[in-house]
């Protein structure tokens, strides 16, 4: 009896201590991003300064965009990820399926502070990134200028890198076949358009080296395993900093927005909001863009930026020529079908 009493005493003391601690010290937020050069830049621009501002500490983690783990967490009611970086089709789908919290913008900032189309019900844009053509300027004498050149194996012999998957691959095939950027999704929405894209891919099937992680194409380009490749533009900048002579062709690049989202049922919603608000401030987004050339989403961040850095971003007016945005709705609708079709084509 005595022991039991003392145990309850200890328990209540611990509980009381925890309560008072929670009032003063700040819990840490688990923030999951895509890793690599992108995570390094986030650490410098967001995680470190967030902790320094006494906002709370950040436990970083990384994933490859698979929604399975988030779905499993939300369904089991045991959410351990507080803030996640998501690509736009997954964000839209996850929002509809109830994987993510509907955001309360009064806790983040007015939607009008952000560039149009970078904020939605469940996600706040972090940055604008681009999938573009890149080549090794040391290995190629003449520079390619379009996806048509990418398909020209006579003029540019050698292997080419493409991301293993239907998304972007089919768009690039249609661009190479002469479809105008504005018509790509209209054509890809028809049966004939899909046939056309796969027929175009057939032409260079034997010359393609497929990649899956964003860190692969710069390595493949640097080692000379491929002469050109589709790349995430930020990864090329990281390789350039290491002295590799890699160049980007912005013509025919496709840009998309990555967003912060809060998995539904996160126990640290308030901290998550505080982190998102902090990371959305123009000064922090400017630091991020200086680390890795992804375009900021906060309208004010663009104005005060070093012009040299601004010129390297996918959102720079010069780079937007011939570029277009990915059609999120299209990929949510046709994604499953086209990825299945792509798998069947690639496995043959």
């Amino acid at each position, binding site marked *: 009896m005595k022991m039991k009493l003392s145990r309850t005493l200890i328990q209540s003391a611990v509980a009381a201590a925890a309560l008072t601690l929670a009032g003063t010290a700040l819990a840490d937020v688990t923030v999951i991003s895509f890793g690599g050069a992108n995570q390094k830049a986030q650490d410098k621009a967001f995680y470190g300064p967030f902790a320094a501002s006494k906002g709370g500490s950040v436990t970083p983690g990384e994933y490859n965009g698979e929604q399975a783990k988030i*779905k499993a967490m939300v369904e089991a009611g045991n959410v351990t990820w507080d803030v996640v970086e998501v690509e736009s089709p997954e964000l839209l789908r996850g929002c509809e399926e109830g994987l993510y919290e509907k955001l309360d913008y009064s806790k983040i900032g007015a939607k009008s502070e952000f560039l149009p189309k970078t904020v939605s019900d469940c996600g706040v844009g972090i940055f604008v990134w681009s999938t573009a053509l890149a080549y090794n300027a040391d290995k190629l004498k003449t520079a390619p200028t379009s996806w048509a050149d990418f398909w020209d194996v006579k003029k540019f012999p050698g292997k080419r890198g493409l991301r293993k998957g239907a998304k972007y691959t089919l768009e690039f095939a249609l661009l190479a076949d002469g479809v105008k950027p504005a018509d790509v999704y209209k054509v890809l929405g028809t049966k004939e358009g899909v046939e056309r894209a796969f027929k175009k891919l057939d032409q260079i099937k034997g010359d393609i080296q497929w990649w899956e992680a964003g860190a692969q194409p710069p390595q493949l380009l640097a080692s000379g395993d491929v002469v050109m490749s589709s790349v995430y533009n930020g990864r090329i900048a990281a390789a350039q900093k290491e002295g590799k002579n890699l160049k980007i062709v912005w013509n025919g690049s496709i840009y998309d927005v990555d967003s912060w989202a809060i998995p539904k049922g996160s126990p640290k919603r308030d901290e998550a909001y505080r982190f998102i608000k902090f990371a959305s401030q123009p000064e922090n987004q400017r630091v991020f863009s200086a680390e890795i050339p992804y375009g900021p989403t906060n309208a004010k961040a663009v104005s005060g930026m070093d012009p040299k850095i601004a010129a390297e971003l996918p959102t720079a007016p010069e780079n937007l020529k011939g570029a277009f945005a990915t059609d999120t709705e299209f990929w949510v609708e046709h994604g499953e079908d086209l990825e299945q079709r792509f798998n069947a*084509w690639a496995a043959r």
Partner: protein
Amino acid sequence: MTAASNTADALAPPAASVPSLKKRLRRAEMRKKLLYGALILPLAVFLLVAFVWPIASLLTRSIDNPEVHDNLPHTLRELKAWDGEGMPPAAVFTAFAAELESAKGSPAIAEIAKRLNREETGYRSLIMKTARKLPLPADTDVPSALTEIDARWGEAETWRAIRRSGGATTPFYLLAAIDRSIDTHGNIVTAPPEEAVYVNVLMRTFWMSLIVTGLCLVLGFPVAYLMAKLATKQSNMLMFFVLLPFWTSVLVRVAAWIILLQNEGLINKVLMAIGLTDGPLQLLFNRVGVYVAMVHILLPFMVLPLYSVMKGISPVYVRAAVSLGCPPFKSFWKVYFPQTLPGIGAGALLVFIMCMGYYITPALLGSPQEQMVSYFIAFYTNQTINWGMAAALSAVLLGATLVLYMVYARYLGPTRVKLVKPR
């Protein structure tokens, strides 16, 4: 019954204060059985909780079909009365509009849309678009109002798709896992060649597993033979080398092969230095690389059972055969080799079944033409979150493996190996 026991009592020895021998024996046996049962109970419970139950619950996902069934119950009930020709009655439209409206804004609507989109691409946006326009103003003609929102509501096929996807269970995923589907008239049809993939992938999985098993046997047999013949000290040394790879993670070994096999890698550099080839050979991202790494990883699983069987074979038989005038190779082939068959069977089965589920090695070292079934299971689990499809592919893989195992047990199992006829 009573009569029988009466006779039994009559036959039993009198003054039965001590239980009969039979009874005592039975009791002792019962005690032994209980003891055995208690001994394996922890493992049995563990297997049940950690193995049987998860697998069973996963497999049920391959036929589970709750999306439309649970979320549009009234619509489905009304659709039952419809003959499938012409337009469904107005009651169907009314029930559908009401249920869609109540599902609006909740995850249920996304579930319905996602499931119907698998029947026909485009139905997702149809559902979403329709839900956005609801509720309809009071006193409208629901069928014409829905048709006005989208012409597809005026087509019988749309409603047939809803009815088709409305069962509590569905063969949809299992059929898709073998490149089949159900057409609008309920017949099972083969998928068009540009979409068919899984039958090929399954055959490829079998074929690659067979090749790897064969290579492991060819490479592992001499090693096991040597180990069984050598003195303990030397064979222990060899055993150490066989077991060494077990202490390194599979991922590290695969990464090591990437470094060795790549264009600028060690093997290509050596080949070019000694002048065997002019340019680098393509050893990576094709079948060669996958075979090399898989054989390397799975070789111990072939060597160990072979060795354990060979160690138990008495050298007396071969000596006897040779002393009776049988040539050395013939005596090896006729006398020694048949005795190793149980080891070959066990090793081959182990390697083959492990091959069937291989994922990481083909994923890292192969091109899309080398991917096996487990790649697609991972794809559906992680990428598209189509767990029905992932479960169906798992079920097909499990089924195929079980059939194979039964064939093995029937014709090649350890008890069946009787190539040397007893004389």
